């Protein structure tokens, strides 16, 4: 497990410009835009906006080896209540039904519960990307399952595998056992249980330089193993491909897997997946209110290609049909059966 973020270690890969330099010049594969053009899909254009994905901070209780946010306990960037209010103001004017809150560990933002409550007042469907271990990280978080239940929040939680070895290698020593305990707390609150309507989805992402495959089969295995060994229930499993950026990029380079991984992504390029990427119906909002096409572009500081780039001056007409900002990392979302925050896309 990495103890500190790239940023804290002053690692050159903390810089988005350095990451883009490597992505564009150090793997000998065609540009993503060329590949899109070959498939007749260039440029990718946004469709109707359906999901707001809001990153409310890079602070996290974990320092996972694959984290594209470079999140960790040493990151202090979090969304203020006034920026949250700007998000609420924008959302109150928009026909966007789903708000997906991510981080870091979003629960570590002191205004997190206020924000969720206000979003529910607007009638939004709220998804929280909960890393599970936060529920046990401090007593003040122990009642989160009740808070989630009372607000009918949908939970999406990472669990890289149903065994401790692979999970702990990626997310840190002891994370698997804490995650299991947290899942049992969520189940006790009714999450993942038939008939409650409380949705608990798990997110699988490979613990290494390989792609996810067979989401349906993987879901069956996760359900069977977690039920048999720990009595845990959940709704769906989302399989997500690791993006070659930030700390996963560091891992790829250190382990000498970078070029091979990029070639693997290229060889698995699927035009059908490219037509269903999540950026087409999602807008990503950064901790400081800046707008991006997705959370990955956010971490690479590739802002939306419209003149208005902040939540305070969001212009829905300009955002509709906007040209999506793409680069080599986009091969990650278009490989195989595709990858999004809701798993496979084809």
């Amino acid at each position, binding site marked *: 497990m990495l103890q500190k973020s790239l940023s804290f270690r002053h690692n050159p890969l903390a810089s988005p410009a350095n990451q883009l330099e490597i992505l564009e010049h150090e793997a000998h594969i065609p540009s993503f835009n060329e590949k899109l053009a070959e498939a007749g899909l260039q440029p990718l254009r946004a469709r109707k906006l359906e999901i707001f994905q809001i990153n409310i901070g890079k602070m996290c209780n974990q320092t996972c080896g694959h984290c594209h946010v470079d999140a960790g306990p040493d990151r202090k960037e979090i969304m203020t209540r006034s920026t949250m209010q700007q998000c609420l103001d924008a959302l109150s004017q928009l026909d966007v039904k789903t708000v997906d809150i991510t981080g870091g560990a979003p629960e570590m933002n002191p205004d997190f519960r206020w924000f969720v409550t206000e979003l529910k007042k607007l009638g939004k469907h709220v998804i929280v990307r909960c890393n599970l271990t936060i529920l046990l990280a401090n007593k003040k978080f122990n009642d989160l399952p009740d808070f989630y239940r009372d607000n009918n929040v949908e939970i999406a939680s990472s669990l890289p595998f149903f*065994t401790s*070895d692979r999970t702990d290698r990626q997310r840190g020593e002891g994370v698997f056992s804490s995650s299991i305990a947290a899942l049992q707390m969520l189940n006790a609150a009714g999450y993942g249980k038939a008939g409650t309507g409380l949705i608990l989805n798990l997110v699988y992402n490979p613990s290494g330089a*390989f792609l996810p*495959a*067979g989401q349906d089969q*993987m879901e069956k295995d996760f359900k069977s193993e977690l039920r048999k060994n720990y009595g845990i229930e959940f709704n769906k499993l989302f399989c997500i491909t690791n993006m070659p950026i930030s700390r996963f990029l560091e891992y790829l380079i250190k382990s000498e897997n970078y070029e091979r991984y990029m070639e693997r992504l290229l060889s698995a390029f699927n035009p059908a997946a490219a037509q269903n990427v999540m950026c087409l119906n999602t807008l990503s909002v950064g901790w400081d209110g800046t707008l991006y096409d997705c959370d990955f572009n956010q971490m690479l500081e590739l802002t939306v290609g419209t003149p208005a780039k902040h939540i305070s001056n969001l212009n829905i007409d300009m955002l509709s049909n906007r040209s999506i900002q793409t680069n080599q990392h986009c091969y990650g979302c278009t490989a195989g059966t595709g990858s999004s925050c809701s798993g496979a896309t084809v």
Partner: protein
Amino acid sequence: MTKNRDQYYHADDLKKFTHIGQFGKELADKFFDYYGSVFADGALTAREKSLIALAVAHVVQCPYCIDAYATDATEKGYSEKQMMEAVHVAAAIRSGSSLVHSVQMMNKVNEISM
């Protein structure tokens, strides 16, 4: 870049597998068509076939196949323990096939012995 040809196996050569058509396209095309059909979902799933392929790769001791199916089986969600058990199945059959021939050895020894 000139490759060191003092070694027989090169990991990069796996990517050139499809190039075998350069020296005989018709048979290569037939093979890859057959190969694709074999590994598609059928009475056995593509996932189950991947684990069988991994085990067989160890018996035929093909480093390319081991690389390919260690990756494929990992991607398809098999755990390290499951993959190692599959290799043990292959190893058990391989050693068993040697040992069962010892019956022939015993037969021959008994035949020529007083």
